[in-house]
């Protein structure tokens, strides 16, 4: 057994190799525990109230960053051991997930992120009424996730889903671990590459779709479907059809690179898990059942599954051939029979961007980069840079493995397939974010590949230093990219109390105007109210304190009552995302009160409610 110490050292010291291994194991446990203790002790000194537009990183004490650095370096050192200890590596990954994705739940007050409250509202509607109403909201046409949430909340006897929702990022990232491990181990037998790929996944999953949401849940189901196909349904060497004679002659006319590409594309996978026909049938039934839940619970994920599965089948990477057809039929049937109420009024939303790639890129990237405060623009640029970095590293890794004759066609196709959806829809400016997420597993696998090209490569000091260096860069990038919007994403108890007060006094059918399109809204009785937001008003009207524009908004829905709620997170969002000057919302509030057309009915440091006097 090789020792981690250089040969010269081990020959000088009277230490036996197994003692060195035990010492390494002890270090592999002590360092992560030291990191979690340091991290836990440092949490009370995080003051989220002092956060700037750089996000959470602006209030993190150095000790928390040191703890994360210790854990990351310890993980890289663990990968350097001649014999990998799965429990020690898992300990590192569990702690990393907890520290990276659970920190906001521990240092902030109420569950973070506006969409969590909307999703809690859909759940509350089902809990209260026992039905769904597709005419109210698009998500009621794909209610699977909310039905499950409502059922779980009722049966655990929680008042609402929010106490559980706060831990969704940690829970989702933990359950992603299993199928990701299956996907990576179906690509390589080198466990170092598998574990480093997993580390890279958690250091680059800044996209933030793992909050309490259908898409965070459905990403797990997507990973499970892909993992089943790659593990048991790859086309083996024996099953791979030979190139027919006429086609071979036809190919002979092409240049050698084209012939090489075709041979590479159709070369069978070498790593396959043997299975009995009965097992394969059972696994297929399981896969179809899981896909049924995907179809039932999210409008977009079925298309990502379809894109990936169809690509794998077309390029003869997996069987059965009829699977994409069945999946397309299931998706089509659900859309035709169950989502009519949504489609009637929103067909343009579905088909409007078809083929408009430039529109999608503008909505997803350019519009985001150009708006907001300088710090926020820095965060957005960091996201673009970190995305380019991980994709670039993945490209290098793919070329590395290609030159070493690894047959990674399935994984390269899975990295590319999600991009096909860019022609379909801008998805309200979020399509590129989703594409990043769905292509991330193969991307991080290839990004890790240059470091572990053979079964014992990456164990040298230089390579370990390189692995640690890249991991630390990704960690640094993660802290900015993941929590860069935190000043507007975190929500205080006072804000939630303000929203509860509003729902307690506002009569049904009132218009509720939010100070901006964030904050704790719509989490209860959401079908009973109309909603609007000052984000829909031109920002110069807010800067100029134009009361008439706000009055027009209050009268626009012709409701009996109208209320304006302005909370801390809404003020932060107005400054962060639209570039409004600090204090602009406060000055508008003063102007509204001075006009006599609005009356202050609730005032706490983080939430004010104004009633429009008709």
């Amino acid at each position: 057994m090789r020792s981690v110490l250089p040969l010269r050292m081990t020959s000088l010291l009277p230490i036996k190799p197994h003692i060195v291994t035990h010492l390494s194991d002890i270090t592999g446990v002590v360092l992560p525990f030291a990191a979690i203790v340091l991290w836990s002790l440092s949490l009370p000194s995080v003051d989220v109230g002092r956060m700037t537009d750089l996000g959470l990183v602006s209030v993190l004490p150095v000790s928390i960053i040191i703890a994360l650095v210790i854990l990351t370096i310890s993980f890289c050192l663990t990968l350097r051991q001649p014999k990998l200890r799965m429990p020690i590596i898992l300990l590192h990954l569990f702690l990393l997930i907890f520290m990276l994705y659970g920190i906001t739940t521990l240092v902030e007050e109420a569950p973070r992120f506006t969409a969590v409250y909307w999703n809690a509202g859909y759940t509350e509607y089902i809990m209260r009424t026992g039905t769904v109403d597709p005419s109210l909201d698009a998500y009621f046409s794909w209610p699977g996730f909310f039905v499950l949430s409502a059922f779980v909340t009722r049966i655990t006897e929680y008042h609402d889903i929010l106490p559980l929702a706060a831990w969704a990022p940690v829970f989702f990232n933990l359950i992603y671990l299993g199928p990701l491990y299956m996907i990576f181990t179906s690509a390589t037998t080198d466990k170092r590459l598998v574990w480093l790929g997993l580390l890279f996944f958690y250091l680059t999953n800044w996209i933030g779709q793992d909050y309490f949401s259908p898409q965070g849940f459905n990403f797990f189901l997507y990973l499970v479907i892909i993992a089943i196909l790659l593990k048991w349904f790859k086309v083996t060497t024996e099953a791979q059809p030979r190139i027919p004679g006429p086609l071979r002659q036809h190919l002979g006319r092409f240049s050698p690179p084209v012939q090489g590409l075709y041979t590479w594309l159709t070369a069978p996978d070498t790593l396959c898990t043997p299975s009995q026909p009965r097992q394969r049938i059972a696994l297929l039934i399981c896969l179809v059942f899981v896909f049924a839940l995907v179809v039932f619970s999210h409008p977009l994920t079925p298309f990502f599954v379809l894109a990936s599965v169809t690509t794998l089948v077309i390029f003869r990477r997996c069987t059965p051939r009829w699977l994409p057809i069945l999946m397309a039929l299931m998706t089509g049937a659900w859309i035709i029979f169950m989502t009519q109420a949504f489609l009637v009024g929103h067909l343009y939303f579905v088909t409007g961007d078809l083929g408009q790639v430039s529109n999608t890129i503008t909505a997803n990237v350019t519009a985001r980069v150009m708006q907001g405060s300088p710090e926020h623009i820095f965060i957005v640029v960091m996201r673009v840079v970190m995305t380019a970095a991980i994709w670039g590293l993945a490209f290098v890794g793919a070329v590395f493995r290609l030159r070493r004759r690894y047959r990674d066609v399935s994984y390269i196709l899975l990295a590319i397939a999600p991009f096909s959806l860019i022609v379909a829809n801008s998805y309200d400016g979020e399509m590129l974010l989703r594409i990043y997420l769905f292509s991330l597993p193969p991307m991080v696998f290839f990004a890790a590949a240059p470091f572990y090209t053979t079964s014992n490569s990456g164990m040298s000091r230089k390579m370990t230093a390189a692995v640690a260096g890249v991991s630390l860069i990704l960690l640094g990038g993660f802290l900015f990219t993941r929590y860069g919007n935190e000043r507007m994403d975190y929500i205080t108890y006072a804000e939630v109390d303000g929203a509860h007060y509003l729902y307690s006094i506002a009569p049904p059918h009132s218009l509720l105007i939010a100070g901006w399109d964030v904050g704790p809204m719509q989490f209860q009785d959401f079908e009973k109210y109309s909603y609007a937001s000052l984000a829909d008003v031109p920002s110069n009207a807010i800067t100029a304190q134009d009361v008439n524009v706000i009055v027009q908004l209050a009268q626009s829905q012709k409701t009996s009552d109208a209320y304006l709620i302005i909370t801390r997170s809404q003020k932060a969002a107005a400054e962060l995302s639209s570039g409004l000057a600090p204090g602009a919302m406060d000055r508008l509030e003063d102007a509204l009160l001075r006009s006599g057309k609005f009356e202050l009915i609730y005032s706490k440091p983080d939430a004010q409610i104004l009633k429009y006097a008709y």
Partner: protein
Amino acid sequence: MKRLPWLWPAIIVLSTVATCLVTFVITDIAVRPFIVLWFLFVCPGMALVRFFRLEELVVEWILALALSFAIDAIVAGILLYAGRWSPTGTLGILMGISLGGAILQIGLDSPISLIRRTRVSTK
């Protein structure tokens, strides 16, 4: 790792009984969410995945989790669309699926069935 054929059926049966107790009998108990969540997220799927005989613990866990989510949501969804939304009714159906799967596993792995299968394969 040696496969213990009685372990998972026993865990599923005990989990089902525990969930039944904390939901319908001793409802005011602090550990109720943990027991119920464990049951909902693991047991219905594990009751079926064990029939696949995959021999890999990690893989069984992953499929059990995904299948449990699917069974929970689809059963609850069918009742909802049928106009019979009932969390306790849904839980009852899930308990039935879990118990049925566990009992069938015990039956298939019992010494008598093992002897029968051995005889068939010898013939």
